[in-house]
Structure formats: structure tokens, C-alpha cells
């Protein structure tokens, strides 16, 4: 698996693991039974097949028990999935450190950083194209927008993904946990340039991030 670089990456991976264990069990059990039956009941000279309706209790239990067990597994998966979903998508942290704006358009990402005053939509906001700068261990709320068609903001190392819809501002959040430079992908087909709509996220420590803000503010930031 690829690196886990956000606070909730591990919880999403754990839900994937939970599902893998449960469905893996069913998969192996079903395929094992399937191939065993094919081998066990292969045609033999002089042996006639059995006549079974399927509703005799001694055979039907082979369907009803697995049936109930599948339901039980489903309940576990639902609980795991909904918990993670609630944390990642349904709530926004109260104590976010900063808000950023992410704007998709054919075929580039524009990132609006709050700048030195840490407030969005003020004069010192820093706009960049295809490079998102964030500070490690800080909680960010993002506002996701689109100028034309659907796009989708995805940072695989965070495990986050959210479609952008023109006319709406969709909120989400993340908190990076390790520094580094990673891919940002557009994962909703958005026209002929979809394949080049790549961006990078730069996760910096406090010092690097402060340096970047200073250089971007004084320099010729886009």
C-alpha cells in the first residue's frame, strides 16, 4: 500500500482490511467448496446423480446458515464503513487551523492559500497553479469548486477524494501527518486534457512553510 500521510488514512486502510478479511473468507470458502464439489461429484461410470429438491432440511441448512452469516458480516462492514465515512466526510473539524480553496478547471488546479494572515479572501492570499502547499500536522478545511465541468480532487496518500461541481462549493478536510511531495490527481474525466491534469501537494514543516509563504508573497505569485 502507498504511504499514509493523513490522520484518517490509516482508518480507511483498516476498513479496507476488515472487508478484505471478511470477503476473503467467503471467497475462499465458496471457491473451495465449488472446486471440491466439481472434483467430488465428477461423472463416474454407473453412478447416477442424486435427486434433491433443495428444500429438505438436512441440505437446505447449507444455504440458510451461510445466508445468515453473510448478513452478520454485512453488519460489521456497514458499521466500519459508516464510522470512517462520518469522520472523513460527514463532519468538519471545529478547530481547523486554516481554510484553503481548490478550484478545478479544464485542465489545471488553482489553489488559493490563506497567506500570512491565515485568512482566506484577503489581500495576501497566495494563488498557485498545480502546486498546493500545506503544513504538516495542521488541520485544513478545503472549499472545492469548479469553473466548467466536473473534476475530482484526489490525494491518494491522504485517501481523500471529492468531486468538484460547477456552481457549488463543497467542503472537506484533511490533516497531513508527514512531510513530502505527492501527487494530486483529477479523477473525474473532464475532457481531452484530463490525462494531464496533474498537480503536486507539498507538505512542509513549519519553517519551510513559513519560508514558502514569505517567498510567494514577495515574489511574483500567480
Amino acid at each position: 500500500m502507498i504511504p499514509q500521510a493523513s490522520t484518517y488514512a490509516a482508518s480507511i486502510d483498516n476498513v479496507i482490511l476488515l472487508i478484505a478479511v471478511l470477503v476473503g473468507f467467503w471467497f475462499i470458502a465458496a471457491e473451495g467448496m465449488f472446486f471440491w464439489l466439481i472434483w467430488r461429484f465428477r461423472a463416474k461410470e454407473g453412478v447416477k446423480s442424486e435427486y434433491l429438491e433443495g428444500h429438505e432440511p438436512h441440505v437446505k441448512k447449507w444455504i440458510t446458515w451461510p445466508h445468515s452469516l453473510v448478513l452478520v458480516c454485512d453488519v460489521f462492514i456497514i458499521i466500519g464503513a459508516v464510522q470512517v465515512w462520518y469522520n472523513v466526510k460527514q463532519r468538519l473539524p471545529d478547530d481547523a487551523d486554516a481554510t484553503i480553496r481548490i478550484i478545478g478547471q479544464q485542465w489545471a488546479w488553482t489553489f488559493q492559500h490563506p497567506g500570512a494572515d491565515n485568512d482566506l479572501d484577503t489581500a495576501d492570499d497566495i494563488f498557485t497553479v498545480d502546486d498546493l502547499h500545506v503544513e504538516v500536522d495542521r488541520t485544513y478545511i478545503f472549499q472545492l469548486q469548479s469553473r466548467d465541468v466536473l473534476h475530482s480532487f484526489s490525494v491518494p496518500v491522504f485517501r481523500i477524494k471529492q468531486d468538484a461541481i460547477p456552481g457549488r462549493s463543497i467542503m472537506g478536510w484533511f490533516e497531513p501527518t508527514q512531510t513530502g511531495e505527492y501527487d494530486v490527481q483529477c479523477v473525474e474525466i473532464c475532457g481531452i486534457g484530463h490525462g494531464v491534469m496533474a498537480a503536486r501537494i507539498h507538505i512542509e514543516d513549519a519553517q519551510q512553510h513559513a519560508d514558502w509563504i514569505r517567498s510567494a508573497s514577495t515574489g511574483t505569485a500567480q
Partner: protein
Amino acid sequence: MAHTATAADTHHDAHAHEHHGPQGILKYLWSTDHKMIAMQYLFTGIAMGLIGAYMAYVFRMQTAFPGVNVPGFGQVSPGEYNSLITNHGTIMIFWVAMPVLVAAFGNFLIPLMIGADDMVFPRINRLSYQVFLLSAIVLIVSFFVPGGGFGGAWTAYPPLSAVAEYNQTNLGSSLWLLAVALEFVAFLLGGINFITTLMNSRAPGMRAYDIPLVCWMIVIASILFMLSVGPLIAGAVMLFFDQTLGTGFYDPARGGDPVLWQHLFWFFGHPEVYVVLLPAIGITIDVIATFARKKVFGYKLMLYTTVATGVLSFFVWAHHQFIAGIDPRMANVFTITTLLISVPIAELCFVIIATLYGGSIRLTTPMLWALAFMAEFLIGGVTGIFLGASGADIYFHDTYFVLAHFHYTFFPIAIIGTFAAFTYWFPKMFGRMMNDTLGKIHFWGTIIPFNIIFIPLFVLGIGGEHRRIYNYEHFPELAGEGMFMLRQIATVALLVMLIFQVVFFYNCYVSWKKGEKAGKNPWKANTLEWTTESPPPHGNWPEGLPNVYRGPYEYGHPDRKEDYWPQNQPS
């Protein structure tokens, strides 16, 4: 029996009419015989399948070897790439899976298996195919118009699909939409026929629970299609207006909403999966019952489970839209419904597996295909759980994991299911047996590469590779050597699989020309189609309509010396 005499007279008239009717190719295009219409659908479906396979070949070459000069195509531009993946998906679902599984086998099997001499509405049936053919032509024309074919993915999400300025395929996208709409018309016409014929034209003595499951499955699929397609047709009309008249149904700047389309599309799109899945399951269970010499393990259980699956399938659509910007609370509801549908689907699989118990299993070519359907579909089924669970879908949505997952459902359905049906009923369709050795070479030459194509794609998806990208070199994390190696393995496996299809066509040709004569019932099966000649003449029943005395799966009955008991034998 007066009934029989009337039926025979009708056949005679029909024959006389045929002789004076159109000659040459028109005789085939203008026929109202359900078997001929089945052939039309089958051959058109296979031809479209070859086009879809060619598209897969071209874009897989580009994905694995970016910038390569693809033999038989040339350099692939980003626009062409998008158009190829879009039309590959559209063709394989609407012009291959639907016409072959539902229309071709529905047309061929339903009248023969329920003991009718033709469909209830033969001319509507003919019209259905003609509209379908027109839709295929419109789609093919759309590839060659200025601007090229539509490239907004088979889901056609607006605003990309609605605004020419965004998709840059003005004419291509309108023709694509028109073709899909025409295809829906064709299947509505066909579906009416399937449902009415099953309800009204069964042979004397055939009760509801004596109908072979494959017929039930095709009819339930037709009902699902009719119930789900209405909203999408309305949605398609609005999209067409947005494209051509500049209305704003999906334009937020003018009060519209792009997400509306997604709801209408997936309200149809998810039941559509079951529309093609159910006939494939029906084929599988019929073939398995025949070659395991076993009664289906719980006929009514299977039937009711299918109906339950069908009903539930209308309440799961938004699992395609978890991250699309819908209210996040909705994801919880749809996670629950989606995981609940795993219960009836698992039950269908259990019934198929349990049917093998106590059998006397013969691994003929059709049986291998039917068993392979089950073995491979299980992979598609269990990987779907990851995507139906909202928390895990945040990561997997729109990655190659999704792509591999639905190919593990659609390939077993549309390709493996079709080959199971085709090899099983080939003797009935053409009167000759297929070569079993060539059949098995083709089987292994398809199944092994199939897994080598799609297992690497699961791995790529877990590694974060997202879909519909014409060149992964632009994404540093996806451009590694290992990832390109996996892409190349998949592409080479695809080439191997395509080459092995030559064996299939060769086998069809030699078997059709020189195969051993099949006789009426080469597989010693029970259902009615095996009680008439191979191939059945016009009107199906030269000896009069059959009478039905029992269910379709009376194999291995303890009171009989033979291990089968045809439905039409009095005792």
C-alpha cells in the same frame, strides 16, 4: 388436438408467405421468425463485440506503451483515447451484453423453451431489431463525424457531455446520445415481447414453476429494464436539449444541476447491471443442471431471490455517487442497501454451487464456461463490497480497482455467459455439434489471459492508479517501472486472449460446415427446445405443440432408469 392443428396451419401459411416474400439478403433482414431475429441480434452483437475489442486493444496499447504507434490504428491522441474508452464501454454494455444475452438468447430460447411457435408480436420483434441495427449504425457514424466520437465516458456526466465547448465533440456527443436512445427503444420493443410471450404463450400444461429459469431470468431482466429506463430516457432528452438547443437542465448557472443526471443515469445504470447479470445466471444454472445431471437446488428459492435482487437493485444507485457531492448522510443509507443486496446475490451463488452437490458432473465445453462464470463472477462479487462500503470507496472510487471489479462482473456476464450459452445451444441453432477439443483450447485460451489482464489492474488500483488517463507518465507516483510493467502484462495478456478468439471463429466455421449431426437432444436435456428438430423449422413444432408434464430439471429421478426426464414425456 384442435390446438395443434391450428398451429400447424399457421405454420403452413407462414411458410407460403416466406416463399413469396423478399428474397436474398432481405429474406434474412425482413424475417419475423424469432430464431432469425435471434441470429440477427447475435451476429450484430458479435460484430459490435469485435469493434469493442479492437478499441480495447488500441487503448490498452497506449496505456501500456505511451506514444506507441499502435499497429492498425497509429498514434493515439488524448481525444481519441477518451473516445475509445467511452465507446468501448458503451458498445460492450449496450451493443454486446444487451443484444446477445437478452435479445439474442431471449428471442431464441423463450419460444422454444416454453413451447410457443413464435413471439406474441413477431412484427414488433422485427421492428425491435431494425431499430437496434439503426442505433448501431448511428453509433458507428458518430466515430467519423468532424470532431470525432464522444469522449466523455459511458456515464456521460454533464456539463462535459452537455456543452460542445467543453467536450469538443459537438456532433459526436449528440449522435452518441441518439444511438443510446434508439437502443433503448429497441429493447423496450423486445422486452414487451418477452414478457407477453412468457405470460401468454406457454405450451399446454406448463405452469409458472415449470418454466426454465433462464426464461424467467430474461423476463425479470426485461421488467427491470422497462421499470428503470424511463427516468434515463427523460434525462437523455434533457441532455439532448442541453446539447442541441442550449437549454440549461444540467447547467448550474441557469438553475440546472449536473448531479441530477447522475441520479437519473444510475437509477437506470445499477438495475442495468442486473438486466445483463440475470440472463447470464439463468444460462449458467441451466447449463450446470444439464451437465451435473442435477435438479436446481431450490428452484423457487432461486426465483424469489432473483425477484428480491431486482427489487433491491432500485435502491442502491447512489453508491456510484458517494463522492460526487451528494449529501454525505445519504451515503450511509446507500451503504446499507448496497451491502444488503449482497445477501440475495450470495444466495444465488450458493444455489448454483449447491446444485453441484450429488451431481454427476461432465466437463463439456459449455459446462466449463458455466463453471468459469461462477468462479470468476465470485471475484467480481466480493470486490464489489469494497466499493459499496462508503468508507472504503473514498479511496477506491474511480481507480483501476473499480475497473477491474466491474470487468470481473461484466466479462463473466457478457463473454463467459455468452460462450456458455453459445456452445450449449449451438447444436440447436445450427444442427451440428461443436468441436470439443477446439472448444476447450478456446476456453483456456480465454480464461487464463482474462485473469492475467485484470488481476494486475486490481493491484494498480490499490496503488492509486485512477481511470481514463491516456498517459500515466504525467503522474510521478504512477509512472514507476513496476506500474508500467503491470500495465504491460495486462496488455500482452489481452493480445493473447484476442488471438485465441480466432480458434473460436475457426471452430464455429468448421463445426457449422462439417460438425457431427446433433440430432434432437445431444445433451440429454429436459427442456422443450431439445424435443424438436435441430435447427427447429419455422414454427418450431412440426409434430405439434408439446404438452408439458413436469418441471425443467427432473434429472436423476429415482423412479427412472435414465437420469433425465424431458418435460414433454407423459411418463
